[in-house]
């Protein structure tokens, strides 16, 4: 067997027995990510439900009338506490005895019946979550009450409801099978994939060269007939496989999370319908290949240059910034992006993933992006190989 492959299989075997790697590459994305999103979804759902059920205490200052409106509020889960003075109501709000204060216009009923606008003033505490929730509830109930009165006013004049809406807009998605979930995933997935691929491979990459120097196994390896190129390529291949596995598991973990009905509600009600076709998966793997080669080569460079794993970790901090920034930028960059972005490593891969997931693939962007990624990966790999052939770097520990 080729010595590169001998090194590769041995390294892969060791990596597969490393619990840290298994946890970060497979267990965490496949188990923890769906669990985390499911947990957040449950919390959001519970909060929404409890917010719907809870009766909100509100102080009301209504000099005259407004009984119908007040009844509508009470019917919508608002407990009215009538007070005569605004100051008294404000004090109750400050003391958190009520969540909001409703001030009704003196001519509330007259304005309502005379086809004028009756004013409702709501006082609330912007620093208090439940006070803000109370405002939302009051707004919704008032809008509902208002809409009912519009119907009544129109009916009085024998006018249909269509009168107030001369034109109606109806939007329909052309992707019936993967609608909103696809859009949300296309924003989140590229970010998750490009970061997971990098951080998943950090531990094995540092263990494979810097770790060997630290443990003193590198010298015996260098004394075998395997050339340095064969050794570094075997190690580099292993890191690339781990990179790719980390990216794929991160993607599967997110899809699994979206498939869970509760967690998917955080993002969209329709996310459960999301599915990935084989061509889309194939395109993702093609995109990921140069990216993982680039990551793997860069991590091998650091691992070779560092005297031990601890030193490698210190180089990782500035490098992480260079990876995280373009990954974050991909979330805020439009899918149909400018061609020059194809020349920015990491961001270009994230943008292709985004394009593939939304089905808006720009061939020129894709080709240029893949060319740039391949070129950058080849340069990084060449540097890693050269560095590995330098005896002073390799034997420094």
């Amino acid at each position, binding site marked *: *067997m080729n*010595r590169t492959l*001998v*090194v590769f299989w*041995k390294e892969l*075997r*060791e990596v597969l*027995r*490393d619990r840290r790697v298994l946890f970060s590459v497979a267990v965490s994305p496949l188990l923890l990510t769906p669990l985390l999103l499911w947990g957040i979804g449950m919390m959001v759902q519970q909060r929404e439900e409890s917010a719907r059920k809870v009766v909100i205490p509100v102080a009301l200052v209504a000099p005259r009338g407004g009984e119908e409106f007040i009844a509508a509020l009470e019917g919508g889960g608002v407990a009215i506490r009538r007070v005569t003075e605004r100051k008294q109501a404000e004090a109750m709000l400050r003391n958190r005895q009520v969540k909001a204060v409703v001030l009704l216009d003196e001519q509330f009923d007259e304005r309502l019946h005379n086809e004028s606008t009756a004013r409702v003033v709501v006082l609330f505490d912007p620093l208090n979550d439940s006070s803000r929730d109370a405002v939302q509830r009051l707004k919704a109930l008032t809008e509902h009450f208002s809409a009912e009165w519009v119907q009544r006013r129109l009916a009085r004049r024998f006018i249909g409801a269509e009168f107030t809406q001369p034109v109606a807009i109806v939007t329909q998605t052309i992707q019936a099978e993967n609608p909103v979930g696809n859009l949300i995933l296309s924003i989140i997935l590229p970010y998750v994939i490009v970061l997971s691929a990098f951080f998943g491979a950090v531990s094995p990459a540092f263990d494979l060269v810097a770790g060997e120097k630290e*443990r*003193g*196994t590198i*010298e*015996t*390896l*260098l*004394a*075998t*007939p*395997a*050339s340095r190129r064969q050794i570094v390529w075997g190690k580099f291949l292993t890191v690339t496989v781990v990179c790719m596995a980390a990216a794929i598991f991160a993607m599967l973990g997110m899809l699994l999370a979206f498939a869970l009905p509760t967690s998917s509600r955080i993002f969209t009600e329709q996310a459960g319908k999301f599915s990935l076709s084989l061509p889309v998966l194939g395109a993702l793997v093609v995109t990921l290949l140069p990216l993982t080669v680039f990551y793997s080569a860069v991590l091998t460079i650091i691992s070779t240059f560092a005297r031990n794993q601890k030193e490698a970790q210190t180089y990782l901090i500035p490098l992480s910034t260079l990876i995280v920034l373009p990954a974050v930028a991909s979330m805020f960059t439009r899918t149909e992006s400018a061609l020059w972005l194809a020349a920015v490593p990491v961001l270009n891969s994230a943008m292709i993933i985004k394009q593939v997931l939304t089905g808006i693939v720009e061939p020129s962007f894709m080709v240029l992006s893949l060319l740039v990624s391949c070129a950058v990966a080849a340069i990084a790999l060449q540097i890693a190989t050269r560095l590995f052939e330098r*005896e*002073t770097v390799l*034997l420094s520990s």
Partner: protein
Amino acid sequence: MHSETRIRFRVSLLAKGLQRMVTALGLSKVFTDRKRGAVVALDEVSFEARPGEVFGILGVNGAGKTTLLRVLGTILTPSAGDATVAGYNIRTQPQEVRQHIGYLTGSTALYGRLTAREMLAYFGSLYGLSGEMLRRRVDELVETLQMGEFIDGRCDRLSTGQRQRVSIARSIIHNPPVMFMDEPTAGLDVVTSRTIMQFIEDSRRRGHTVLFSTHIMSEAERLCDRIAVIHRGRIVAIGTLEELRARTGERALELVFLSLIGEKEGEE
């Protein structure tokens, strides 16, 4: 004729017929250090080692023993001079040199997540062994070095003595004619050191050449057929123990050694 070419020509002549398993002529190694500038780790080292000979390289820490073995093992490239190992030139045939040497150091660690058997199979494959031949060689070493009890155990769970036996097996998996042993007993207890010493004696009996670097006088005294005393990168004396004793007029090797180093320092 250019001096480098002349040295290479002489080295190849000397190695002919493998009368000399290791031949070094004028080997030098200079490192560039940011703080200290050019550091001469080896300074025109020349010697020969014969088949079936345990050739000791005796020197204090930092004398250049490890650098010498690394250069001969083609892990480092010499700055000047040349050498052959098992008839192969270290500059032009590094892969063949590595194919014919076994390399064992005191700081050698094992791959913790591999079993001892996997470790041996890995190195065997790197030396070009495969299939039935590799399996047979591993079984042979398991029997010879009595590793049956722990051969399928993970290396990170082995005792120091067991690890050292795996290290020895790893270094001879390809049955090399030349062994480079760089302070192989460093940090080991008496019992484990004894395993190494016995292994060196066995290698000599099998007709293998052993280059054995140490700073422990008793080991050199017991094992080495000839000793090269190395100091500050230079070989200050080569000979059998008796020859060195005669040269210095001292009996104990420790005093012989100190005397030789003193001689060298005196010259400077």
